């Protein structure tokens, strides 16, 4: 897919909670075609400690309105600056980058997201729903306040929730949720996004149940376009760039992922 470098306009910047912001971006030109799982490399202006661009998943695309959204979790200086963007400011962005998820059709699928890993799941859930799938979405967080946009996901299917402190949904790790136990065999495909440990655990459950699985990796990146070879993951065919061969991978193709821990994992990145 052709990549673009664009100056997009901030249409709105909504704080979802203390450290998550939803950035709505627009353009006078039609936005490029994007698919769920792809990402963008965003230049952060005015932050002396942010030299490189920052990668973010495409959270939503509204082709009718010609807008797109990024869901941004504040973790350092770069994301802090993005969280402070104001309406009408401009954002320089490379997109769409990487390969998206393989979209099932008329099937039964489970999406699992933990922490900020929910970012690409909205776009994915929406598209899977449109492709006639029966969609279930499992979201995990430390506490009720970490469960973002659960209401909006309901438009596309069942929503399950796990919180570590039990303030919403089932108490415990997302990877220990009942939907991943008894009911898991009913799914034809599992899509997963979140902290490394969580994705490994979900990949393990999928493998054990012989269910197709795709995970979206978040390796540190310098370029996002396959030029620097910094973002590699070890695959069965050697090191591959997450930014061009991924970020979506079938975990069975990743080295050392079959020995995934079955024990719980923190949602702390």
């Amino acid at each position, binding site marked *: 897919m*052709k*990549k*673009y*470098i664009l100056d997009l306009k901030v249409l709105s910047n909504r704080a979802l909670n203390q450290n998550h912001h939803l950035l709505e971006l627009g353009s006078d030109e039609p936005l490029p075609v994007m698919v769920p799982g792809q990402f963008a490399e965003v*230049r952060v202006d005015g932050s*002396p*400690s*942010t*030299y*490189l*661009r920052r990668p973010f998943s495409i959270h939503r695309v509204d082709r009718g309105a010609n807008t797109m959204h990024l869901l941004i979790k504040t973790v350092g200086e770069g994301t802090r600056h993005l969280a402070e963007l104001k309406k009408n400011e401009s954002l320089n962005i*490379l997109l769409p980058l990487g390969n998206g998820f393989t979209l099932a059709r008329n099937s039964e699928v489970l999406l699992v997201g933990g922490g900020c890993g929910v970012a690409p799941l909205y776009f994915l859930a929406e598209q899977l729903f449109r492709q006639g799938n029966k969609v279930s979405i499992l979201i995990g967080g430390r506490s009720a306040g970490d469960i973002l946009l659960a209401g909006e996901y309901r438009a596309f299917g069942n929503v399950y929730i796990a919180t570590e402190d039990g303030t919403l949904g089932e108490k415990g790790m997302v990877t220990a949720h009942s939907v991943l136990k008894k009911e898991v065999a009913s799914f034809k495909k599992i899509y997963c996004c979140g902290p490394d440990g969580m994705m490994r655990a979900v990949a393990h459950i999928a493998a054990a149940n012989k269910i197709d699985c795709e995970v979206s990796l978040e*390796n*540190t*990146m*310098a*370029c*996002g*376009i*396959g*030029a*620097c*070879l*910094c*973002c*590699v*993951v*070890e695959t069965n065919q*050697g*090191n591959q760039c997450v930014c061009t061969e991924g970020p979506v991978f079938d975990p069975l193709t990743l080295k050392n992922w079959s020995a995934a821990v079955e024990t719980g994992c923190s949602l702390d990145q």
Partner: protein
Amino acid sequence: MPGLEVKLHKLTLKNPVLTASGTFGYGEEFDDFIDVNALGGIIVKATTSKHREGNPYPRMAETPMGMLNAVGLQNKGVDYFVKNIYPKLLKYNNCVIANVSDSTVEGYVEVAEKMNRLDHIQAIELNISCPNVKEGGMAFGTSCPSASAVTRAVREVYDKTLIVKLSPNVTSIVDIALAVEEAGADAVSLINTLLGMAINAETRRPVLSTVTGGLSGPAIKPVALRMVWQVSKVVKIPVIGIGGISSATDAIEFLLAGASAIQVGTANFTDPRTTVKIIAGIEDYLRRHSIAEVKELTGGLLL
């Protein structure tokens, strides 16, 4: 319209702006963003005699106005290059230069010999300055005898323009430059990355899998500029300036310091259009200063 052409030994570049090896892939990664043929030339990523997996992840750390990398020469080896990558490079009609690296003199010679047979590869850049491999690499570039030996060996088998890329991690880069000039280099390019390190204070671990890595980006520009100035005062062969160049102003500073051409590295990541913006900016500068040809800038520092 001011003249942008520059000569680099036997090569004629349509303008002095090249891309630095390892930061521009094989060119095609940038086709969507710029007309790669508009550049003076491209230096593609390092090729070694054998396939190499490079270093384990993580390979990157951001630093103040720069970055560390520890890629470690990941590439599929020269034979794969000849068969699968070279054909794709034929679409570029500007100057295409291969970056040659290895762990042994024999390895360098093997790659150079194979590159010599490729018509469309008009020059090679001998990378004796990679800080990210356990053997070879920078070790060749930090002593005069070894820099000289590898240059001489490659010179024997390579007919076209031979550029030697120097390491900044030395007491006297001038001595190394003189040694490779004497050993037959047609040009020198400098600098490769400075050896650096990053630590995550919270986890108490090094950020890079290799602990140390190569520092690049604007942070190193003052050091690179100094070295280009020192080297170009003493060698007779052309000097190619590299290090933190992100704007036309940066590029012009390197030309004034004595460079005949420049390479853009890390800045390709922060803005993939940096190279073409620099070309436009140089043209604008020449016009504003009523300078007819860019080559008049080379070494034009007023003291």
